[in-house]
């Protein structure tokens, strides 16, 4: 897998009320196969940063290198998972959704069906290959979306609050599943969330961002063995540390 370098990236939003800095002078190095979570309050620019890395937005200044290659628009070295369940194509079955990227790559049908099945097995949906998204629960739809983003074998997985719209119990299951998937695939992951316990559970390193303008305020390396126990004292300590970083900002 490949490292990601983010160098002095800035982005300014043109709004009717004037120019608003979305992200300002963000620099960050992410190691190959590292799992990085970006946390911060709404409007801190975390999703904007992710969209720049995904290539959906072009930065006003700075550059991003993925495996030493400069990002220019979207590319198949990155897989993207969004928060909205509606990201799946409703006219395609789970299998059809997962094989979309392979189809774009020109992989023959037998081969892409085989790979798509494998990916659906990875997210424990092998029984639902023929189901259309509207017959699947929210959690299952998000698992299809993860399998879809992994199927064409990108080296980087970008996730924008993929479990934020799920209920708490399902979210716990999904976090465990994602940790397993990451352990198996060893992708470099950038995961945006506002959920502190989720960040501590998943990340090697948590980046804290603050708004107006969106900048990196702190980073915390989570040195806990996996699988992590969310009820352990150490886990809660990390959560407290993160909340302190975030809380200081909101009281300032």
């Amino acid at each position, binding site marked *: 897998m490949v490292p990601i370098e983010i160098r002095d990236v800035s982005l300014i939003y043109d709004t009717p009320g004037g120019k608003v800095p979305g992200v300002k002078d963000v620099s960050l190095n992410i190691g190959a196969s590292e799992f990085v979570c970006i946390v911060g309050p709404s409007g801190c620019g975390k999703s904007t940063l992710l969209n720049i890395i*995904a*290539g*959906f937005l072009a930065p006003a200044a700075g550059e991003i290198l993925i495996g030493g290659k400069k990002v220019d628009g*979207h*590319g*198949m070295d*990155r*897989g*993207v998972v*969004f928060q*909205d369940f*509606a*990201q799946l*194509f*409703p*006219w395609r079955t789970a299998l059809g959704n997962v094989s*979309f*990227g392979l*189809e*774009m*790559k020109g992989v023959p049908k037998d081969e892409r069906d085989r790979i798509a099945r494998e990916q659906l097995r990875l997210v424990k949906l092998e029984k639902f290959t023929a189901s*259309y*998204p*509207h*017959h699947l629960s929210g959690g299952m739809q998000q698992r299809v979306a993860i399998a*879809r*983003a992994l199927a*064409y074998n990108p080296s980087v997985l970008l996730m924008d609050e993929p479990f934020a719209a799920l209920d708490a119990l399902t979210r716990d299951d999904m976090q465990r599943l994602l940790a397993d998937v990451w352990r198996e695939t060893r992708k470099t992951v950038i995961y945006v969330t506002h959920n502190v316990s989720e960040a501590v559970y998943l990340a090697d390193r948590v980046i804290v961002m603050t708004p107006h303008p969106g900048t990196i305020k702190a980073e915390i390396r989570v040195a806990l063995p996996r699988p992590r126990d969310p009820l352990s004292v150490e886990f809660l300590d990390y959560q407290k540390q993160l909340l302190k970083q975030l809380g200081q900002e909101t009281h300032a």
Partner: protein
Amino acid sequence: MIDSQRSKIRGMLSLLVAAALYELVARSGYFAPALLPTLPTVARTLLATITNGSMIEHAAFTLYRVMFGFALAVVVGLPLGILMARFARIEHFFLPLISALMPIPSFALVPLFMLWFGIGNLTTILIVFYAATFPMVFNTWSGVRSVNPLWLRAAGAMGADEHRLFWKVIIPGASPFIITGMRQAFLRAWIAVVGAEMIAASDWGLGWVIFDAKEFLNTDVMLASLVVIGMIGFVFERFVFGSLERMTVMRWGMMRAAKG
């Protein structure tokens, strides 16, 4: 299965009630039977004209004109609607034109088209085409603009180029609107053809039959033709477009049946 049977029975019921009401008025004696024939009379005429083949032939002519004009409307309206939604310049050029032309009833154009194109198939087909194109363009245009931007983003991230974005995302994504557009276009086509045939058809077509029957006070022929028009429309609406919808957008959960 039980639900679909129930809805069929309900559909039959509403038709039966309407027929019974008509029959009651027709037999009330207030109106001349020549003007308001009873349903058995209409049924006899219908059966007779079907068995001697004339009704079938008239219906075939009408259907031919509808299908030809409708197909033209789809062939022109679908790409135009898509282009309008994708390119601002095309939208700016065609939108005022469409807004100005759409409110003109197709019927009002029949005399003009007759002078330009003569009496017969060409005029009726062009009238049908005129009537059916606008709903096709409008719905396609709305449909493409309402495609979820997240689908485009996801597909782009997975390496879809413009060409495949179009065929694999935009077209299926806009399909609920496109199917609605086809439905409305067909309905408009069906309405337009009968009007056009009354004036601009020579000797053939259901519209012509109705208009011709007026000369001889053949109200039973008029009503029998109306029944045929209604039945063909019903078949297309319920079976052709209905099953197209069930096989696609309803199966995909992009459109739902009404509850309860």
